[in-house]
């Protein structure tokens, strides 16, 4: 099993993003996903900038995959997506079925990201026919689900899945996407004049229940978990099951260090962590 570094889900300045990927280039992380997945209004880092970073990372020996938007609304966003898919060099992480279509049309292999609904073997196999070579397990599914899918394929074809498995295993979970920008709403701004206020929340804005339980993290149009998923205790089990990639979803420069070491050295537990989905219960639960 290898570590993969997921795309940055937050709005960071171009300088911070460049610094982040310079450090990634110098790390031992073998697989890097990058690109804007949340909001097309974030224009700090343009696609051409991401492409330049992708070249730099590939030249440092990384496997590079370009991640695409999870929610496409305007025709211009689909046009931009097709441009990204047609980059001519890198495969993409499809985070919306529209990206699957765009990749399928030009015969480009793709990774299905965590926001593509893959709930059963027949769906996975259909996506594989269309070019899927790897899938990130949808976040709300469990180890039981994964072992059942693998077992179903073995029962049907006598071999394991003909595509790679990746698990979103560390970081804040993307729980939902909306037309509404909740960060702008917090500041009393409409989305069309958002002033990119999400720049001021490098890990999103923490929301708590009225009895002070951290619950959500507002990140523009995306709602995340307040707790970080941390499946480092399950690494051996994942390896045994045939998981190929352990995804670390970055939230700061520190995430690079986490990703570098997580498969080999025991990590200090995060103050707010969860692993419920993996154990087939509520996502926010911490099962020990």
């Amino acid at each position, binding site marked *: 099993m290898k570590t993969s570094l997921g795309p940055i889900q937050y709005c960071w300045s171009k300088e911070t993003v460049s610094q982040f990927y310079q450090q990634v280039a110098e790390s031992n992380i073998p697989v890097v996903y990058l690109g804007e997945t949340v909001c097309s209004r974030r224009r700090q880092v343009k696609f051409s900038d991401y492409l330049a970073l992708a070249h730099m990372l590939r030249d440092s020996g990384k496997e590079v995959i370009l991640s695409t938007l999870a929610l496409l609304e305007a025709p211009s966003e689909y046009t931009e997506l097709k441009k990204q898919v047609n980059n001519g060099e890198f495969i993409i992480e499809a985070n919306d079925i529209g990206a699957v279509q765009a990749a399928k049309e030009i015969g480009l292999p793709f990774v299905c990201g965590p926001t593509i609904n893959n709930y059963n073997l027949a769906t996975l196999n259909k996506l594989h026919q269309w070019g899927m070579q790897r899938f990130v397990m949808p976040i709300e599914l469990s180890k039981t689900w994964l072992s*059942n899918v693998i077992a179903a394929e073995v029962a049907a074809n006598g071999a394991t899945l003909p595509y790679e498995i990746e698990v979103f295993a560390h970081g804040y979970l993307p729980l939902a996407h909306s037309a509404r920008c909740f960060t702008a709403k917090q500041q009393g701004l409409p989305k069309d004049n958002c002033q990119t206020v999400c720049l001021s929340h490098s890990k999103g804005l923490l929301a708590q229940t009225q009895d002070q339980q951290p619950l959500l993290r507002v990140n523009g149009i995306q709602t995340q978990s307040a707790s970080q998923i941390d499946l480092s205790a399950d690494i051996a089990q994942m390896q045994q099951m045939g998981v190929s990639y352990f995804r670390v979803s970055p939230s700061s420069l520190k995430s690079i260090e986490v990703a570098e070491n997580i498969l080999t050295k025991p990590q200090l537990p995060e103050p707010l962590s969860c692993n419920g989905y993996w154990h087939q219960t*509520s996502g926010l639960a911490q099962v020990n």
Partner: protein
Amino acid sequence: MELLCPAGNLASLKIALNAGADAVYLGLKDDTNARSFAGLNFTPKKLQQAVEYTKKCGKKVFLTINTFPKPGEETRWYQAIDLAAATGVDALIMADISLLDYAHSRYPHLPLHLSVQASATNLGALTLYKEAFNIERAVLPRVLSMKQVRDLSKVTPVDLEVFAFGSLCIMAEGRCHLSSYVTGQSPNTGGSCSPAKHVRWQEDGSNRLTWLNDVLIDKSGIDEQMGYPVVCKGRYTTDENSTASHILEAPTSLNTLSLLPELAKANVVSLKIEGRQRSPAYVEQVTRVWRAAIDSYQSAPEKYQTQQEWNAALNKVSEGQTTTLGAYERTWQ
């Protein structure tokens, strides 16, 4: 323009059809649909009765099979599709790729509507489902502005259906994990958002506490109007605001009566009323108003005006007794 109304049971179905629905949609009494609540939905025998009654009225009935089977569970969903085909429903409303594939390959003449749970918002997504499974229609998620609906309608390879009225889901449907994050069950996996068994209310002095699987999602006054408790409509504090507020959305319903002319001009083929979980009285009230509005528009499109009494009647049955245009209106976003 079709008026498509919800039927949680046979009584609602008859009321909807008698009040002017052109078509009704319903689900089976199990977790093959995303409104799997106790006391709702149709057994195979009731489904047969529903189909017979609807056909006698000269109207249409669609069966919703819009959850996602997990490995080993598929048979229940395949049987639901087989039953639908045998019963003669007019279309299936589905989201899962494997189910669309199953239905398309076995029953190529049975029309398929892409459920909102498939979360298809763009030309690429619609093209894929059209090319792969020959879907006839797609239900658009409640994330597009009116302009975006209009833009999509100019290029779409399939008919478009939109939500016209009812509880407002503010997230891209079919890809929202807020319910499962708190309860372990989502519409996709368990057939409902905020399953009732996890909801608990507690009176605390002059406050009512709303718990979802022991997470406090709201604290309200005893007399305050409340909607069904869901995570996205709870009140929370943030690092920047210690006063609890509806940081995502307040309890409110979608009401697009004022957009009817624009939806018609965008060639939207069907207006969907949300609420299979609501009472027959709700279904009757909402159906009557929308029938009157559509008839009024169609008899004299240029003179159409939303009547005050229509909005008043709809407000009475709306969540929080308030309504919004939701994402159709840019300022809401």
